[in-house]
Each structure stands twice: as C-alpha cells, then as structure tokens.
C-alpha cells in the first residue's frame, strides 16, 4: 500500500500535455489542461462523468483533435517529440496503450488472437504462434495476469476479458498505459493483484494513468492525483496527505452528504428460493440448487464476479428464465415459467443490468419508456387507444420527482445521459410501489451524484417495505446498502450473512470460490 511518490522526480518525463483546450459548441470539455507524466509514475485521473476525462484521453489517443494546446511524448531515446493529433496510429506507435472500460475485443476470436490482432500481417494465414506465445507467456508470468488464451473471448468472464485487454496493451510494448475504471469488475483480491501488477510494471518504468472513482484505490495505488471538474484541472497533488473526503469534494465541488440508512425491521419473505436451479448445467452463468429469502423491508446483496450465476438469478426474478428445478415463489405464489409480464403483474420492479439493451427503447420518448411495462393498464389506454395526455402528464411529474435532466417527456430517451436514463428506469419501477425490487448493477457507469441518488431511492423502497434484491460487483455498494449479503460463485449461492460484522476480505475470498468457514 505504499504510494509510489518515493521516487518520482529523477525519472524522466514521458508524456506532456500543455494547455489542452477542446470545445464542443458552447461546451468547453477541456479547458487549458496541463499534465506531465514521468516514467514509473502512477497518476490517478479523477473526475465525475462529464468532467472531461474521456475527452482528454480521446485527444491523447487521437480520436479528437484539441482546439488549442499540444501533446508531446518521449521517443525511444527519451527525447520529447510532439505527437501529431488526430491519429490513433501515431498514438499507438508512440507507445500509448489504453484499456477501455467497455472492452474493444473481437468476441468470436480467442484471447490469443485478440492480443496479436493488428500486430501481424493480414496476409499471414495463421497467427505465427511460437514467438507471440512465448512473449505473452512471459508477460503473463511477470504481471500475474493469467487467463485461458484459447477459448473465444465471448466465453470469458468480464474480469478475464479485462486481463486480455491489459495483455493486449503490454504486448504492444506500451510506455504509457491508460486504465479506465479497471477495478470496477474485479473481486477485491483480483483488484489487489491488479494493483500489484500495476506497481511492478511501474517499477520497470511504465507510466500509468489510472482513471477511477474508487477513492481508496486511488489513494492506495497512485503517487499523484489529478482532479478534473467541469473541464478544468482543479487539483494536481501527491496522494500523500490526501483523504477520501477531500478528493470527493474536489471532484463534485461540494461536500457529499453521508448516506443515511435508517434501521428497518424485516417482515415476511417476499422472494423465496428453495433448491432452485436455473440454466443448463453446461452454462457458465447458472444457478445450482440455490436457497434464498428476501424479506419485506430488507436489502439482500448478491456479491460475485459476473458470470458466476447472478445473471441466472436475475433472469429468474425478472421473468426471462424459468427454474429448471426447485421451487421459487414471489409473495407465496409459485413462479410458473419465463414470464416477464407476469412478474410485472406480480409487483416485481426490475432494474436491468444493461439499461441500453434491456431497460429502454432508444428511439421512443421518455414518456413512452416510462409506461413501457404498463401500456395496457387502464390509466394508460382506453379501448386500445393510448391516453397520450395522461401519460405525458404523469411522465412530466416523474421527471420532476426523480430529477431527470431532459428536454421534456417527448425527447427520445437515447439523447439522455446514462444517469438520467437510469432515473427514468427507476421512476418506472418504483412509481408502481413494487413488493420486490430487483436491482441488477443499478449504478454501473454512473457518476457519484447519480449513484447517490439511486442508493437513496433503493433505501427509500426498503423503508416503504419493499424487499430489495441487489446484485452488484461493487463491494462498497453492497456493504453500504445491504442488510444481508450472499455470495455467488460457480453457480452456488452461499447463505446470506448479516452485513454488519461481515468482513470485505471474507466476501472477497468467497467470491474467489472459498467457503465461508474456510474464508473466516
């Protein structure tokens, strides 16, 4: 946990951004930003969504051209040379590598093929195996990033795909490695091992830009932190002596209210699973003989690395999948089969994992998305004709109540930011006062403000007496919200343990496949 600040300055400069300004119409996305990165340094880039991190990195990577300012990068002899703007090839050739939050992998190719893709001639019929494999094996050894290279990437978990992405960058001999939210999908142990990897890579002279919003990681791993807010650089300081509260305030520009979670007495079970299996045994994301109760007025968190069975659990509760064996009941009634409309009728509020793919219909308006599940209800239609005025009025009220920033109820929902889109989904789900709420990764990709809002709403639903099933890969979120936490690994669901007194390490070990007793 030693900050890397011990030996920064004697190291030579590898990357220097001077006065980078980028405007999109009236919006100044980057305002005269200076940033120097030295070899062997780990620099954190902090900022809310829309603070300008992505724009800055896109300029560095040649996807955008800055209106003003310059980028220079050290060449192989260490001399600083200007980097031509607008060319991703030039950035790659200069040794800039980036691991995006949303991976850029060809899913039907294997890990090995993805890593060497683009480094070999298109005319070679087979990727030349030996040399490449030797190099990758060495990189895996040095970095501790082990992964099966010979199965299609689509079959790997998100965490494994990320390892492929990092190996891909390392394979290209990067001098500056940009990691965009790299730990968002990892277990604490995996995150620790990633941190160790990053430290050892930095010790060998790699410069790392670490984009994250997990402040404790930033403090533990990075020697220096740069904070962007509203497009401008508001802080550039060593992490030594900084704490989470100050960094959060710098990012948001105001003090963050502490999350309040009043005590609550759970009632009768609403969701009840008895030896329930979901999904074919050959499937990776399946559930085997799971037992779980989620009671009215409590939040039960499901921890686990994605692809271990939480997808199957969510599909069962959402009505997309049927139980293969066992008995699943909601409110005492047996779940017959895959029946999303039946779940809506049974007062299950469902927040899907992917709001773009499953939660909203992009070209329909905010108001239409608001009534997507209930269009056939009497308040939304009369004799098959849509009651447009009534729907608009209620959507407008929901926009107000949930603070959705949008041009109005008639705006196409795809024009909204992720946070505002999620607010529409929340409004749709929670306005109906559901008895059971399924929240599957409800804050993935959201900034601190929107995340706080989602958390507040879920706690309010619990206070109202709803049973909340929270599936998340973010342990901070699970510990902050859950009354009880269960861990899913390889299709097996652990008993739900009281969150109070539960140790993050224990949960982490269980996520990696160790039993609760063994872990404790």
């Amino acid at each position: 946990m030693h900050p890397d600040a011990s030996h920064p300055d004697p190291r030579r400069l590898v990357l220097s951004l001077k006065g980078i300004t980028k405007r999109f119409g009236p919006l100044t996305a980057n305002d005269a930003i200076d940033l120097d990165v030295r070899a062997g340094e780990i620099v954190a880039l902090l900022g809310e969504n829309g603070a300008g991190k992505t724009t800055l990195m896109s300029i560095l990577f040649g996807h955008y051209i800055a209106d003003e300012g310059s980028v220079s990068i050290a060449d192989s002899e260490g001399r600083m040379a200007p980097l031509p703007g607008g060319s991703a090839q030039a950035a790659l050739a200069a040794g800039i590598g980036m691991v995006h939050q949303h991976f850029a992998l060809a899913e039907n190719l294997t890990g090995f093929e993805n890593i060497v893709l683009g480094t070999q001639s298109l005319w070679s019929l087979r990727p030349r195996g030996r040399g490449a494999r030797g190099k990758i094996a060495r990189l895996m050894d040095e970095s501790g990033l082990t992964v099966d290279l010979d199965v299609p990437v689509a079959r790997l978990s998100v965490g494994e795909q990320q390892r492929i992405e990092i190996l891909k960058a390392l394979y290209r001999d990067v001098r500056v490695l940009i990691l965009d939210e790299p730990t968002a999908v990892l277990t604490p142990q995996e995150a620790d091992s990633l941190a160790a990897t990053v430290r050892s890579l930095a010790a060998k002279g790699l410069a790392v830009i670490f984009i994250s919003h997990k402040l404790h990681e930033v403090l533990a791993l990075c020697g220096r932190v740069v904070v962007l807010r509203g497009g401008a650089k508001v802080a550039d300081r060593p992490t030594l002596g900084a704490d989470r509260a100050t960094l959060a305030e710098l990012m948001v520009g105001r003090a963050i209210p502490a999350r309040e979670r009043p005590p609550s007495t759970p009632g009768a079970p609403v969701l009840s699973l008895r030896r329930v299996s979901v999904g074919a045994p050959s499937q990776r994301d399946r559930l085997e003989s799971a037992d779980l109760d989620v009671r009215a007025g409590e939040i039960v968190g499901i921890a686990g690395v994605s692809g271990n069975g939480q997808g199957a659990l969510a599909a069962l509760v959402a009505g997309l999948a049927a139980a293969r064996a066992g008995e699943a009941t909601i409110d005492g009634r047996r779940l017959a089969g895959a029946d999303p409309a039946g779940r809506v009728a049974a007062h299950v509020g469902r927040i899907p994992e992917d709001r773009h793919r499953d939660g909203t219909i992009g070209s329909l308006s905010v108001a239409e998305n608001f009534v997507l599940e209930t269009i056939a209800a009497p308040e939304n239609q009369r004799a098959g004709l849509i009651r447009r005025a009534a729907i608009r009025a209620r959507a407008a009220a929901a926009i107000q109540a949930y603070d959705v920033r949008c041009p109005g109820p008639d705006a196409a929902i795809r024009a909204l930011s992720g946070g505002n889109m999620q607010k529409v989904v929340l409004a749709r789900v929670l306005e109906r006062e559901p008895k059971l709420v399924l929240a599957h990764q409800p804050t993935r990709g959201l900034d601190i403000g929107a995340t706080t809002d989602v958390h507040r709403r879920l706690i309010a639903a619990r206070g109202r007496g709803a049973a909340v099933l929270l599936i998340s890969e973010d342990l901070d979120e699970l510990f902050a919200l859950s009354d009880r936490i269960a861990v899913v690994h390889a299709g097996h669901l652990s008993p739900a343990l009281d969150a109070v007194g539960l140790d993050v390490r224990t949960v982490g070990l269980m996520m990696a496949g160790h039993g609760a007793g063994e872990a404790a």
Partner: protein
Amino acid sequence: MIRFVPRARTPVWLSVAVSIGAGLAALALTAIPLALTGAPVFTAFALMAQGAAGNGFALAETLTRATPLIFTGLAAAVAFRAKLWNIGAEGQLYAGALATVALGAGLIEAPSYVLVPLVLIGAALAGAVLLLVPVLFKTRFGADEVVVTLLLNFIVLLFVQMMLEGPMKDEMALGWPQSAPVLDEATLPKLVSGWRLHGGLVLAILAAVALHVFITRTVWGFRIRAVGENARAARYAGLPVGKAMALVGLLSGGLAGLAGASEVAGLKGYLTADLSPGFGYAGIVVATLANLSPLGVIPAALFVAGVFVGADSMSRAIGVSNYLADLVVAFALLSVLVGGLLTRFRIVFVRRGTA
C-alpha cells in the same frame, strides 16, 4: 473536420425537406447521363412532368399507377418498422388477386355492398395468411424471413400460372391464360367516368391514414414500435413480442393482398400472370422514400408513379429510353439514404486545430 451530433428529436419539417431535397437531387443526378446521351435535358424533364401531371388524364394515370404502390408501400413500411423484412409483397399481392377472382368471378352472387367488402376481406386474408407462415417460422424456428418471403414470391407466381392455365382459365378468352372476369357487383367503382382511376385509390389513402393512427395512437401500434426498435427491451418489459410480430405479419400481408384486389377489381377486371410489373418490390422503395411513415407513403408512391408514367410519355416523345425512370428512382433511394444522415444527426463543422 465534420462531426455528426445525434439529434434528440427530428423536426417534421426537416424530414419533409430532406425527402423533397432527395427527389430534386435524384433529378439533378439523372440529368448527367441524360446530358451524355445528347438529349435536351430540360425538355426531357419538362416532358416527364407533363406526362406525369400535365393534364387531368395524365394525373389520373399517375394516380392509378400510385394506387397499388401505396398499398405495397404501406405493407413494407409497417413490416420494416417492426424489423420484419417482408420481401414477399409481390407474392402476397398475387395471393390477394387470386382470392379476388376466386370470390368475385361468380362463386358468390350478391349485391355490390356485400360482394365488394367480401372480396376485399378475402384478398387481405389471403395476403395476410401467406405472410403469417414465414413470420411463425421466424418466431418459432428462427427461419430467416427474407429468404422465405422472397422465395414464396416465385412459388405463388407459379401457382397463379398453374391456376390460370388450369382450373381458373377463362374458357371465353380464346386460349389466353387469364381468369374469368370479376362480376360487376365485385368491381370497385370508377372515380371519373372514362378514366381508369378507380375506388382503390380512396381505399389506399384511407388505409394509410388508418395505419398512421394505428401505429401512433394505439396500444398495439406502440407494442409494434417497441418490438421493432429493441426487441430485447420489449421482451424484458413483458410486451408480447411474438403476438406483435404476428400482427405485423397479418397487417403487412393484408395490405399487399389489398393491392392485388385493387388492381383486379378496380383496374383490370380479371387476373393474368403479368398483373404486377413488380409493385411488391417497388413498395420497398416507396416505404424507404417515405422513411417508413404511413402518411409519407402517399407522396412517395405518387413520386414513383409519376416518374414512371412521365418517363413513358417522355420516351415516346423524344426517344430516350424509359429506363430513365429506374435511374431516377434509384438515385432518389440513394439520396434519401444519404438524407437520413441529416435527419438523424446535426452536422457540425469543426475547424481543424493544432494538437
């Protein structure tokens, strides 16, 4: 540098302007090969315009030609909105035409206020059922509807030829493979005496308006739009995806079937195997030009019909091949596809800065 910024909402005036602009661009592009042939460009276009709408008779001819195109355009528009790629409107048109002569050429004798609706319903049902089969194959087994509907066209056409050479052959037609004529009671009324313009046009316009209301104002229309735009999210939300697709199949096939009924009972009076010069396929062009809007289908069909009727007339006058019409329509299609960029994105010019 040019950047495309997605629009939250496309204003209606812009869609209309882009469509008109696309039509003009198509004519301008057609002028290039026309000039290369040495033909007088402006005279040719003037003759085309005159031939399409220069007098009452020309206009009536364009409207007559537009009638089946409105039906098949609507069939394509409603199907494509739901991402059901119905390429089989041609076959559904013939199925509707076959039903029209089967019911209206003597099988049933009834006054026209009974027989006309009966014939129309029968034709719509024939087209609808013909498309329902591929739709069920798609939703049940994942069979690709493009292949199935396209190949069904040929099966239906061969079936029609078989019927016209066999059981439905008119004994009085001197050996020509054509059906017996539909009864007067089953015939759609002429709109203006002496011209070929018939009641099918009124029906087509009513169908466009009804489809517009259905898509935008009804619960099932909402479901169809939702399923078409994002079937995964629609399924997640509990919408009846399979039923919505089946309904789309029935509507699309039914509309194409009506095109057949309108051509037989309104225009020709009997069925031949060359009833349609590709109205089913042209409907796809019409729907695309209309940006899949049911109301937009009407002007789009008029444009395509006008180009073809006008080109025929121009070709007779100055001897330029009437294939020019195909060229205009093809250019219009390309222009509309390019114009779609303008309706979906705002184009922002960015000065190239230094970096």
